């Protein structure tokens, strides 16, 4: 029997926003554990706190209270957190991010966009041949193209390639198909599933798309900042 390590551990996480005099809990005392190799989908209605939770788990945002540990490091403990530079160092070691709007740099080619993370940091064991990643994602012929010359699906695959170059431990995807049609959405779902199944990449996916959510083996439903349902799906 093999034991898989815990990569993210959140306990009693709260995120409170002030809206005038009102205090709104975007995340309300949520706890979860994510193990290496898991593929977790977070679904729920708009305003349920999905993206906020993803940002907290990915160290892009701080919780108001609760305890969060990633990769064995406590990054937040009841209101006390790490500095921005410490969080950056953790982010670049552990996480790869993909966003709904791709956020590619418009003046850089596909290859250059994928190489951007290396400008700031090259993790030990990072991908040596970036073209191989592009080839895996069917982008090798588009390496010299600018983002404006690509379709939405291709742009999101470039964003995935960019997230993968430093071989992250966890890929965090926030509505990656939000701007894509159903066919391209299926394509992205397939890519994510392959990354999880063939390469064992841990993935946390936030989506409104039920079909895409089914790519994951663990599906968590949020409502008002709380987990209201959690289901595990059998292997595909």
């Amino acid at each position: 029997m093999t034991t898989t390590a815990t990569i993210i551990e959140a306990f009693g996480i709260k995120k409170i926003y002030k809206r005038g005099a009102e205090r709104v809990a975007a995340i309300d005392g949520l706890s979860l554990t994510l193990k290496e190799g898991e593929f977790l989908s977070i679904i729920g209605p708009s305003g349920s706190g999905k993206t906020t939770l993803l940002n907290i788990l990915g160290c892009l945002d701080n919780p108001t209270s609760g305890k969060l540990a990633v990769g064995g490091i406590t990054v937040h403990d009841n209101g006390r957190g790490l500095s921005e530079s410490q969080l950056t160092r953790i982010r670049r070691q552990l996480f790869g991010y993909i966003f709904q709007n791709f956020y590619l740099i418009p003046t850089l080619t596909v290859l250059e966009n994928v190489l951007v993370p290396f400008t700031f940091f090259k993790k030990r064991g990072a991908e040596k041949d970036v073209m191989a990643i592009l080839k895996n994602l069917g982008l090798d012929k588009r390496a010299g193209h600018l983002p404006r010359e690509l379709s939405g699906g291709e742009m999101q695959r470039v964003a995935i390639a960019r997230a993968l170059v430093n071989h992250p431990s966890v890929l965090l995807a926030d509505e990656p198909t939000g701007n894509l049609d159903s066919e391209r959405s299926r394509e992205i779902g397939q890519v994510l599933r392959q990354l999880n199944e063939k390469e064992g990449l841990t993935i946390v996916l936030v989506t409104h798309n039920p079909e895409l959510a089914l790519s994951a083996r663990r599906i968590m439903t949020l409502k008002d900042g709380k987990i209201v349902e959690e289901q595990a799906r059998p292997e595909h």
Partner: protein
Amino acid sequence: MKNRQRLSLFQIAWKNLARKKTRSFLTVVGIALATWVLISLFGFNSGYKNSLDRDIDNLGFQMLVVAKGCPYEAATLMLKGGTGLKYMNEDIVKLITREPEVESVTPMLMQVVFDPNKGQSGGLTAFLGIDPATFPRLKPGLSFKQGSWFTNPEAREVVMGYEAAELEQREVGDVYLIPEKEVELKVVGILNRSGTQDDGTIFLPLQTLQKIFGQEGQLTSVGIKVNKETNLPLFEEKMFKLPDVQVVSLTQVKTTIMTLVSTARILVLSIALIAILISIMGVINTVLMSVMERQKEIGILKALGALASDVFKLIWLETSLLCLLGGLLGAGLAVLTSSLTEYLIRQLLPFSPSGGLISIDARLILISITAVVLLGLLSGIYPAFRAARMRPLEAIRSEEE
């Protein structure tokens, strides 16, 4: 072909600037204009001073020590009918040479005679006895139309000023007869026109003139050239302390000219400073706008692993590139348009020396470009700091402005 699998900060910065070509171009032009004014101004500063120094050097000595009461200009002497000459003993040369500020001295003796054959009713002719060893060195501006200086210090030879030779219709090889003295001398040189009193003067070796006029051991003036670092007014005071002499100095002339030029220089410097300030504001505005427009992108860079220092460096690099390009363009402009600038300055100035007014060398260009880049770096601090302290999530969520 294998793709290059590396992307430097420089490449990102360069492509960012290329994104808004017109804005970047206009900013570069602003910096270039400021650099152009800066380089031209400092080029003018040193060029004008050098030319003025050269012109004054060509005029001869910076100071003349003459016997008290003795006219020191041929014209004054003529007005006085050739009378009133006062003499100093040659020993004064030794006293002057002892002063550490003195670079070289040249003793002179002036004599005037009435020439009944000059003009319709006769006229005065001025003779200047000079030391052939020192006088030509102190008068580098004098050049020969024909011939050269004397063959030896006691030679019975004359060198004639341009107008004197014209008046006397003499050429090299001719004989010249000093009126009243009945002494024959050989013309060995005729000078080019200099625009000074030298044009009407007839030069003889000092010793020859002293002998002919019976003034052995006597001088009427001593020309002095001092070291460049010498404080002329102080040295002038020192010379006044010598017995029975008066001092005539070109310092005052030079000071007056430099004062006039300084006024013009201050005006141009003010314009240059305003131009630089405007271009710095332009740089801050361009970079700040670019930072505000790219907030989301900066947030993504941070999410992709960029530290605050990386973002700071990126924005600073963009600022430096703008300034460097502007500096290089401005330097090129300054060099290419230096002749035109010089022409325009000549039209503006009340007096300008004959040499080049603008002197632009590699050192000036290097210093100016460095100064512009340093100013650019200074102006890039605020936008770079703003970008660096953005939190990734806030930046990603921000609305484009």
